[in-house]
């Protein structure tokens, strides 16, 4: 089987998703490298390629108009584009500033008017180019990324769950955060992560985004009535990693 030529690119992000890519260990990584050839990955290598890219993994949000051309170039060079991480798939945490108009002044003061400090709305990369697959999460699930790659290598179809995190949470028999006197967004969050956060004793904050047709008004009501949050906190909460789909 010919090796798949894969490349990594990044935009506004914390680079946590690409760090996850270094955590597979020696056995899995070296086996993976028998099936794929990494042809471009600025953080990890000096080499670049003019040749074909089979799969481009893109991390980070599209925040500056100048990024559009770079994204289009990636699209033109790559057969398959995979957005990985919440920043790339939905805008993720970067989208929190989309609800503010003074973010630059708050951070840089008067210097905010310097041209290199301009930053626009944080958007998913799908706002600029067509995306073939998404690996959600903040950070992305590294097992899911492997699965996408494996499916691409073997030409098998990729499946992602459409049910909410609660299903996975119940399956692993975690005590519900609401029964612990806390709150949670697992009812509307897209599954696929295995519900690690409630199991670690913290609420799910829907870092993988919402399920289709999520009832967000009901979410706010539950956060207030059962979670005991103020209305203002409930609204804010419903926008942690999901400020874009919420707006």
């Amino acid at each position, binding site marked *: 089987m010919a090796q798949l030529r894969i490349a990594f690119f990044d935009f*506004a992000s*914390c*680079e*946590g*998703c*690409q*760090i*996850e890519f*270094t*955590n*597979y*260990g*020696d056995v899995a*990584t*070296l086996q993976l*490298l028998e099936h794929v050839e*990494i042809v471009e*990955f*600025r*953080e*990890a*290598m*000096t*080499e670049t390629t003019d040749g074909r890219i089979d799969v481009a993994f893109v991390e980070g949000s599209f*925040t*500056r108009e100048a*990024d559009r051309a770079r994204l289009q170039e990636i699209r033109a060079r790559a057969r398959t584009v995979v957005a990985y991480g919440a920043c790339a798939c939905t805008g*993720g945490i*970067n989208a*929190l*500033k989309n609800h*503010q108009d*003074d*973010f*630059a*002044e*708050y*951070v*840089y*003061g*008067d*210097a905010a008017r*310097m041209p*290199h*400090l301009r*930053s626009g709305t944080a958007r998913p990369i799908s706002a600029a180019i067509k995306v073939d697959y998404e690996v959600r999460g*903040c*950070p992305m699930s590294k097992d899911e990324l492997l699965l996408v790659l494996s499916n691409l290598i073997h030409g098998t179809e990729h499946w992602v769950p459409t049910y909410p995190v609660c299903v996975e949470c119940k399956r692993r028999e975690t005590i519900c955060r609401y029964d612990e006197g806390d709150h949670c967004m697992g009812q509307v969050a897209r599954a696929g992560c295995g519900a*690690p*956060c409630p*199991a*670690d*004793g*913290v609420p799910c*904050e829907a870092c993988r985004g919402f399920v289709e047709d999520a009832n967000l008004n009901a979410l706010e009501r539950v956060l207030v009535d059962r979670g005991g949050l*103020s209305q203002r*906190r409930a609204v*804010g*909460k419903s926008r*942690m990693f999901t400020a874009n789909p919420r707006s």
Partner: protein
Amino acid sequence: MSQRITIDVNHLTRVEGHGNIVVNVTDGVIERCEWQIPEAPRFFEAMVRGRHYSEVARITSRICGICSIGHTLASVIATEAALGIEATPQTRRLRTLLKHAENFDSHVLHVYVLVAPDLLGAPSVFPLVQTHPDVVARALRLKRLGHEWGSAIGGRSTHPTTAVPGGFTRVPRVRDLEALRDKILAAVPDLEATVDTIAALAPAIPAFERPTEYMAVSSHDEYGLFGGFVQTILADGDRASYEVADYRSCTNEYVSPLSTAKYTRNRLGSYAAGALARFNVNADMLHPEAKRVAERLGLAPVCVNPYMNPVAQVVEIVHSVHEGLRLIDELLAAGIGDELLAEPTSCGTGAAAVEVPRGILFHEYTFDAEGICTEADCIIPTGQNHGNIQLDFEALLPQLLAQDKSEDEMRLAFEMLVRAYDPCISCSTHHLDVTFVR
């Protein structure tokens, strides 16, 4: 010398985030010599305003995926200082153990993946899979250990879940800690091999000296990680110390036209933070094994060669492993168990300083009586080093010209210098102005 030298490295490779190197020399006259940061700004301090204290650390953690444990801890500890929350001794030990996981993890990645290829004359770690398979396998094993270590304590090594204001939402069980201890012990031979590899590569480290000010968190009980105070040392050994709450008096942020990240300075035109700075300030507090390794690698305080930062990282890798083992034994001896999260007792402003792989994180927050964040300030390590890198550039270029180096040799010298600092540029790009504009 009649020649034109143009170095234009747009988006330097093998660093986290984006940085450019621009050098123009015509007939020996330096026209430009710049380290530029064009990274897209991300504005975190603005985004946490209006957030409940339980959410703030989970947002600021996303400033940097590589230092996310450090950001989480800086945020949590500053929040506790602001809200009068007292952490228990068990919590403090677990946090230290978690912090060592991050320093270990990040240093392994930096030394093996980002620095070693330069010293081995390879463009990246990937060709080394063929030429040095044992080195690559060892690197991946150690990296995996760092990840498992952080996950065992923090739930996740990237954006930890369990470390929150007031303590840990889930503490590791005795068997988890025992398993972690076994894994760390099993890595000791890899550690020795790491030191051997670096010792063999050390002759390839450029000789360049530029004394500067070195800044690190210090403590009377251990090699500083968090808590305590901030200390700086100059090349002649002259020390100064600062309270964490007064961090603005030693960071003095300013905006540079070269950068989307703010720069800092203190007693000199710039200062350095990170492994070499910590070593220079706190070397006498290192674990004896780490001291032995420093001696073997020819590292002694005050070392003024910035290219030696990765060597200081190796010394810290060894320190973290031995300190980690000691902390696990202490936690097991004390009988680790569940504790309720400590609750807020007041409200106001609080600051924290936490050492992360590349330098010091300063976080400061103000909360109102409902526990809602009203002000935030985060100063990030690489922002602290950018100014120092620029001054290193200005000192290095005339030396390279005097040595009649080729353009390629110069480019490599500049790139290696930047990489030695391990600049995590993405995280350095959203700094609050020191003076509040309301």
